[in-house]
């Protein structure tokens, strides 16, 4: 009976240790090829003509001059007359030409007339209070929204029954929803929902999407010893992938397409391209070895990927490179939804949180923005939550590393921090006092809070808001905690041991730069008992066994589990072949440092090569799967906590915030590679500092265009802006036995809240919204309420 469980620490040579990433050398020497790097002979350059208006209707498109230009090989009108455009930067025409210059000349020769329509791009303003809860028919977006917001299933079913739908869901749509994991009760509610007509003329940008209540908040607020109030929020930000979205597509013959695409989802692209291109998915090969950032924005082929293939077809199959320029990338290739909320928190005399009341709003573009999971982590006994989606012309929202969590975390942890200040309590003491509200992970959070406090010097450096640092540089500390799932996704791989001892692994996954290649090799090496360098890993090709998209921190759990099962099975098959030669039973054999031997013996074994020679003429190939209920235990798990603390200095004469130090304490189950795991957390802290201090999509209220679609006034932190970063993992047998859990998202959740709280601690007043730029910091300091005794945000 094969042992699939993770090896004990004493049996591991690689797992849990620090190993440098195997693709480091090709990256630092420039040999790594990214999608942008494919410049095959005969390459055609794709170019998009985009709409400059935030909201418009296409009146006419004249491409006649462009089509006649020499060197223009393909042209397609993407959105013709009559089409309504909902954001600036949306493509209207796509073309491909023999050079970038010709493509640009052709783009300029295209004349498009628009009827400009009214737009909404600014979402920070609080929506009117009297918005009615949506009563029109439920749309597909509404359903996705409700799932995103963890609306109870009964409520979703009730909304479907009462509000109906505008068009009946087809059985194939329902099947698709079922495929996404929508439960049967909702599928049947969708099927049974009555068809209702949408009320005409409702053009308000506001849509009340949720009102939820638990317990008796009114009574709790009445009985409260203190009630703190505040306004908190963060704006729309862009993903800023350094490699923009796009693809190089070519028809290698009239029926077969090769797509090199910048993607987080190598195995999932072909199926998404098959229908629009009207070819079987099996005729589409997707390939990508390296990616310059995705952060949640690169799961689909997008219209640009499809267009690259369509233009290639029109051009007789020649490769067409269609990568977004920076302006379009920043405008249209993804935004993290904003979220703002007014929050009231009730506490009793001892500092126990008794009630939560929030009125939130958010946008993620034309369909509005969902309610983040409020209150975050803390299950406050009595709650009332009202949410309004703001429908804007700012471009479409996309998942951004830990969707909805940074928003919920900032709103909750900042509101709790203000509640502590109102009570005159140290927030560390206040969070510890209420830690039971976090549920089953309370003990772990409490422990992490203590470790983080030690690492940042909380006891020595924290001061109440009533006792600020002397001088114009004010120092402050802040804390936050977070959670995430991170269970491994579906993953399959083929592991082959050749009779000459060579080992291959093929897996349709991708390495987002997180160290996936290195982790797979570490797991395989420890499972086979040979050095990592002896194993060849092939990923990034849709012809390899399917492995899930890299999102939601699901990759490490998936790929490590499928690799483990494949390697254990392959090893056991090998041992079965070798056992007779060693005059032993397979179960009595082990492979240590490339030597196959009887367990415990130090002499008389076979080298790996000698052992593999016993396989026979044909190699051993086994498939490893995750999940696999026939090969227990479950090697991956879900649900982590984590605590972060920030130490900042605020210059009250300029409003500039500097990070002195950040501490991240993270539990994540069994760590495969300590080094790349720590890198994930460092990266998350840097990304978190960046969105806390710098990032926002600045939209011009008059023209509706993004004013900073560049890397100049859309600022990203540089190394000198990040301060000292300290990463500490919870390690040991307790964590190891949980199995492997993903780490991409959790550490990016807390920085906004921790930094905002540190700034409030430094200057004695809450800066309501991120990013904490000088204008916002100075405005908060300017408020008449801004003095050392103020607890809450400026209302």
């Amino acid at each position, binding site marked *: 009976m094969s042992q699939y469980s993770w090896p004990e620490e004493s049996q591991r040579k690689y797992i849990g240790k620090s190993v440098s990433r195997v693709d480091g050398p090709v990256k630092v020497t420039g040999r790594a090829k990214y999608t942008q790097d494919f410049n095959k002979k005969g390459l055609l350059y794709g170019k998009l003509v985009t709409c400059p208006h935030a909201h418009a209707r296409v009146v006419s498109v004249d491409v006649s001059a462009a089509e006649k230009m020499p060197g223009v090989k393909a042209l397609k009108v993407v959105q013709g007359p009559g089409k309504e455009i909902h954001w600036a930067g949306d493509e209207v025409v796509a073309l491909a030409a023999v050079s970038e210059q010709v493509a640009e000349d052709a783009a300029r020769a295209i004349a498009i007339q628009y009827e400009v329509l009214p737009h909404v791009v600014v979402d920070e303003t609080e929506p009117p209070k009297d918005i009615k809860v949506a009563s029109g028919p439920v749309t597909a977006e509404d359903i996705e929204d409700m799932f995103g917001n963890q609306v109870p299933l009964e409520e979703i079913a009730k909304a479907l029954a009462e509000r109906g739908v505008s068009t009946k869901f087809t059985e194939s749509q329902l099947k698709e929803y079922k495929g996404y994991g929508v439960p049967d009760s909702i599928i049947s509610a969708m099927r049974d929902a009555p068809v209702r007509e949408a009320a005409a003329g409702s053009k308000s940008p506001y849509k009340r999407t949720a009102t939820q209540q638990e317990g008796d908040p009114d009574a709790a607020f009445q009985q409260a010893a203190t009630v703190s109030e505040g306004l908190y929020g963060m704006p729309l930000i862009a993903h800023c992938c350094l490699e923009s979205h796009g693809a190089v597509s070519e028809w290698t013959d009239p029926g077969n397409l090769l797509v090199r695409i910048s993607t987080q989802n190598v195995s999932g692209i072909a199926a998404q391209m098959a229908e629009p291109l009207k070819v079987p998915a099996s005729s589409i090969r997707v390939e990508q070895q390296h990616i310059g950032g995705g952060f949640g924005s690169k799961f689909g082929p997008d219209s640009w990927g499809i267009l690259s293939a369509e233009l290639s077809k029109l051009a007789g199959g020649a490769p067409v490179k269609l990568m977004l320029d920076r302006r379009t990338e920043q405008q249209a290739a993804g935004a993290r939804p904003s979220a703002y909320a007014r929050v009231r928190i009730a506490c009793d005399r001892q500092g126990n949180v008794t009630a939560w009341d929030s009125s939130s709003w958010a946008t993620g573009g034309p369909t509005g923005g969902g309610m983040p999971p409020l209150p975050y982590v803390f299950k406050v006994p009595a709650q009332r939550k009202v949410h309004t989606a703001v429908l804007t012309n700012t471009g479409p929202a996309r998942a951004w590393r830990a969707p909805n969590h940074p928003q919920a975390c900032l709103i909750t942890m900042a509101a709790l921090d203000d509640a502590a200040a109102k009570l005159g309590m140290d927030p560390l003491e206040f969070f510890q006092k209420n830690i039971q509200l976090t549920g089953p992970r309370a003990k772990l959070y409490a422990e992490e809070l203590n470790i983080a406090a030690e690492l940042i010097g909380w006891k020595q450096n924290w001061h109440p808001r009533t006792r600020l640092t002397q001088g114009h*540089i004010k120092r402050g500390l802040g804390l936050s905690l977070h959670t995430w799932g991170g269970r491994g996704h579906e993953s399959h791989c083929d592991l082959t041991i050749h009779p000459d001892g060579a080992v291959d692994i093929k897996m349709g996954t991708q390495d987002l730069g997180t160290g996936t290649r290195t982790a797979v090799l570490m797991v395989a090496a420890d499972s086979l008992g040979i050095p990592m360098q002896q194993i060849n890993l092939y990923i990034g090709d849709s012809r390899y066994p399917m492995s899930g998209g890299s999102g939601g921190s699901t990759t490490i759990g998936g790929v490590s589990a499928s690799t483990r099962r494949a390697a254990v099975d392959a090893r056991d098959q090998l041992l079965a072949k070798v056992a007779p030669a060693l005059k032993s039973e397979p179960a009595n054999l082990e492979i240590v440092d490339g030597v196959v031997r009887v367990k415990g013996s130090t002499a008389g074994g076979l080298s790996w090569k000698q052992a593999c020679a016993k396989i026979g003429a044909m190699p051993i190939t086994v498939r490893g799967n995750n999940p696999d209920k026939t090969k227990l235990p479950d090697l991956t798990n879900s649900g982590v906590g984590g605590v972060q603390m920030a130490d900042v200095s605020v*210059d009250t*004469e*300029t409003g500039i915030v500097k990070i002195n130090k950040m501490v991240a304490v993270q539990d994540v189950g069994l760590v495969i590679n300590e080094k790349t795991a720590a890198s994930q957390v460092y990266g998350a802290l840097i990304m978190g500092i960046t969105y806390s201090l710098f990032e926002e999509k600045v939209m011009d209220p008059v023209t509706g*265009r993004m004013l900073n679609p560049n890397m100049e*006034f859309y600022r990203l932190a540089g190394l*000198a802006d990040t301060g000292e970063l300290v990463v500490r993992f919870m390690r040991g047998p307790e964590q190891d036995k949980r199995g492997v859990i993903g780490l991409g998202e959790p550490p990016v959740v807390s920085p906004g809240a921790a930094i905002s709280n540190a700034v409030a601690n430094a200057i004695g007043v809450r800066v309501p919204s991120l990013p904490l730029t*000088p204008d916002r910091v100075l405005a908060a300091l300017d408020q008449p309420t801004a003095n050392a005794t103020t607890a809450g945000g400026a209302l």
Partner: protein
Amino acid sequence: MRPFEYATPRSREQAVGLLGRNWNESAVLAGGTDLLALMKDDVVAPKRLVNIKQMGNYRDVKVEGNDLRIGALVTMGDLAENPEVAKRFPALHEALWEAASPQIRNVATIGGNLCQRPRCWYFRNGMGLMPKDAGGQSLVLKGDNRYHAVLGNDGPAYFVSPSTVSPVLIAYGARVRIFGAGGPREVALEKFYRVPQSENEREFDLQPNEVVTDVLVPLADVRAGYYEVRQKEAFDWPMASCAVALRMNGNTVQEARIVLGQVAPVPWIATEAAQALAGKSVDEQSAMAAANAALAAAKSLGHNKYKITVAKAAVKRALLNAAGHKQA
């Protein structure tokens, strides 16, 4: 980028001959760090680029008479590392070091720095330097003006002067030498900058067929200081900067020149602040009084009130730096 002609003249006379009489006909190419970005973004589309890097030796930094003469083609990087500059003009040295990134400093020239175009985001997005909506109203006033001018902002120009080096050079009393069809001429750098009144005018006193050839900085006995308020530690435009040069009499300021950057469409000479400081020693109090005087006439356009506060800090800190007080 649109197609263009490319010329590499071998003399300044040739250079001037190749430049057109209108701004859209030609453009001077030196380091190209600003021009190429403007061309790629289709903000400007000159029909001819005149590469002046071989028009003569304008790459030297030399003491000539009572001036330090800096050739217009000296890169910002070379100038920042020049020992003469570091010794005699510490505020200039600092401003150069703080500017842009090493990659840009290694290519960008000092002449180009003085003639760079504003960073106004309406301008850079192709909406014009004095952008207007369909009704003829200023987009800057109706839109997002968080980085726009707080001084000299009565319109129609609301952008801010971008160079961080020019306020320092103005504080030191620098002049620029210009070569045109009529031969060379010299202009005090403070007079070189002007507020354009229409899209067809430039932010400086230069004809389309003239080039800046040298910068002349007088070797005066002044104590100078510089401070820029920047969000990021590196590679970021300041929200305000200030350069000061003080002629001292013992511990007392005899004469002060206080010049602010990024607050007005031109480098802003704060005469009132200089007067407020004359006859005083520089301390926290007098520096703050000077800062208040410098910004007394400032007004917010709606989103940029904070810049008034930030600019005051820049003035105060530049003064304290000049006087040798340590600053954050």
